[in-house]
């Protein structure tokens, strides 16, 4: 998958001149097989960048193209297909259904489209050390546990690009390493690449290219 940005500036940053950015207002491309790290301190638009790419907001100048097509022209049906098969997303604010159990949150995605069979998905709970909470409503889980449920959910579907918005922000070093290993393994299995955002000190995921936002 080929993603290109042409002079993109999100509305909140429009007119702000003191940006030391390699992305906003610039032209560049992400191509397959690149593992991208986007780093910046808080408030520079990391989540905005992810949300633009995932089609959740369209208040920006410039144009974003996926495989040569401007995403502003995508219908809701096209976005649904993209989100089922091409791009998977781990939200910074996780966005789990808090009334559903951890397992049900996974099932919700599994029932839509799945890359893996149900048993291997369930085994991921053990691998990420959250097997003991899988039948609890997410509202009762800690942020660290929820983040790992969200990681599993992002890995249910097939994808070409995985968007990870500060993926380990709530995890301890040990669990972050396990999770990052899993993510890289899953990307290799799908021949997919990932784009992740970080405050800058993240050392868990490998990257082939890093951009300052």
């Amino acid at each position, binding site marked *: 998958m080929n993603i290109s940005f042409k002079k993109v500036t999100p509305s909140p940053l429009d007119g702000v001149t003191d940006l030391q950015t390699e992305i906003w207002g610039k032209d560049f491309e992400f191509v397959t097989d690149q593992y991208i790290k986007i780093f910046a301190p808080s408030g520079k638009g990391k989540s905005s960048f992810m949300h633009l790419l995932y089609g*959740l907001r369209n208040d920006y100048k410039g144009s974003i193209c996926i495989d040569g097509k401007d995403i502003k022209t995508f219908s809701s049906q096209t976005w649904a297909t993209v989100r089922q098969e091409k791009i998977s997303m781990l939200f910074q604010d996780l966005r789990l259904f808090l*009334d*559903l159990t951890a397992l*049900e949150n996974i*099932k919700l995605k599994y*029932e*839509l489209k799945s890359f893996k069979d149900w048993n291997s998905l369930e085994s991921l709970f053990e691998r990420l050390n959250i097997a003991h909470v899988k039948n609890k409503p997410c509202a009762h889980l800690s942020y660290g546990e929820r983040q790992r449920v969200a990681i599993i959910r992002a890995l249910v*579907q097939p994808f070409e690009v995985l968007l990870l918005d500060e993926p380990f922000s709530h995890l301890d070093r040990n669990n972050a390493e396990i999770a990052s290993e899993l993510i890289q393994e899953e990307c290799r299995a799908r021949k997919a690449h990932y784009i992740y955002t970080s405050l800058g000190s993240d050392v868990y995921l490998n990257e082939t290219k890093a951009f300052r936002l």
Partner: protein
Amino acid sequence: MKKTILKIFWKVTKLNTLLLSALGFCLGISFVLIGLKIYQNVFSSFSSELEKSDFVVLSKDVVIFNTILNSKSVLEQREIDSLQKQPFIEKIGFFTPNHFRVWAKVSAGGGLEFATELFFESVADEFVDSRPSNFRWTDPSDPVPIIVSEDFINLYNYGYAISSGLPQISKGTVALIPLEIELSGPNGKKTFSGKIVGYSERISSVLVPLNFMQWANKNIGGFYGTDKPSRLIVKTNKKYAGGMDKYLSSNNLLINSDKLGTAKLNAWGKILVDILMVIGLAFVLFSFVIVLLNFSLIITEAKTEILLLLQLGYTTATITKHLWLYMAVYMTIVFAFSAVVYYSSYTYLNKILTSRGLFYEDINSKSPLLLLLLSYLILNGLGYLFIMNNIRKRNKV
């Protein structure tokens, strides 16, 4: 079917309001269907001459001179010719009266016998409504088929039978009664067996086939002439009916109005049943609006969840389908329950009315159920569109 998504909506479903509208549906549907059933059972058997006035019976006004002078009020040939030229007349049929005496006997078993003097009339076949295939007579040894006015059986069932405690009889039963018909005249006496084969709403008379009448008038009555008709049956052209009243009154002609009383009663009954049905319809519509508002509320309350589902790659169509499934299940339960309520209350009502002699035939028709099925499908379809539209409107990504 995706089960987990259903769980998300279950949480925000308002069962209390839905129960309330279920009650409205039940009442409304029952009212409408019972009204419809009453139309079919009661009014169809009374449907008046005036409504079907493409055929009317015309007669010359009987005035006091006819009584005093014992002259018959008949229509002269020139009057018939003039009538024939009127634009509102399509076709004229003549009644042929009997020129012999008729006695009809019914044996009630146990030596009991009822006998009455009768009259017969005949009219060309095309003017007889609901003419059964066995209304035919070819040979003097054949039984004589008879068509009587529906009024006669109504008079018996609703007037005579109730007041004198006799059983009411159905049309089917009447057909089974064997009649013995004795004709007598200058040329002798002859006995036939007779059978009531049908009922006329249009003509209040006792009708026999025209060829039987011609045969009997000649062979028993010894009558070879032609009659001046005292009444006519005419097929009217409704397009020109405007000038009819004026023409008839200026020529001393009367439209058969013996159904007028029933028609008035009918009209009142119809208004009452109409009101019942309108109220029922209003109940159904209001209940449906409540259901729609309820689902609109569900969509509002589950706004975050729906948005998140869309973000996870669910399409509007999939979300609509699952939310609509709730509505469809609800509607199925409500409609099935309504059908049961309708059926049992109708059966109960029917029992009461029958015991008071107001029904005598339950027309077994599927149209109430078809109507129920049709409205079930239409309401579900509308519900689907409503849900889809609501989800689209509120979740423009």
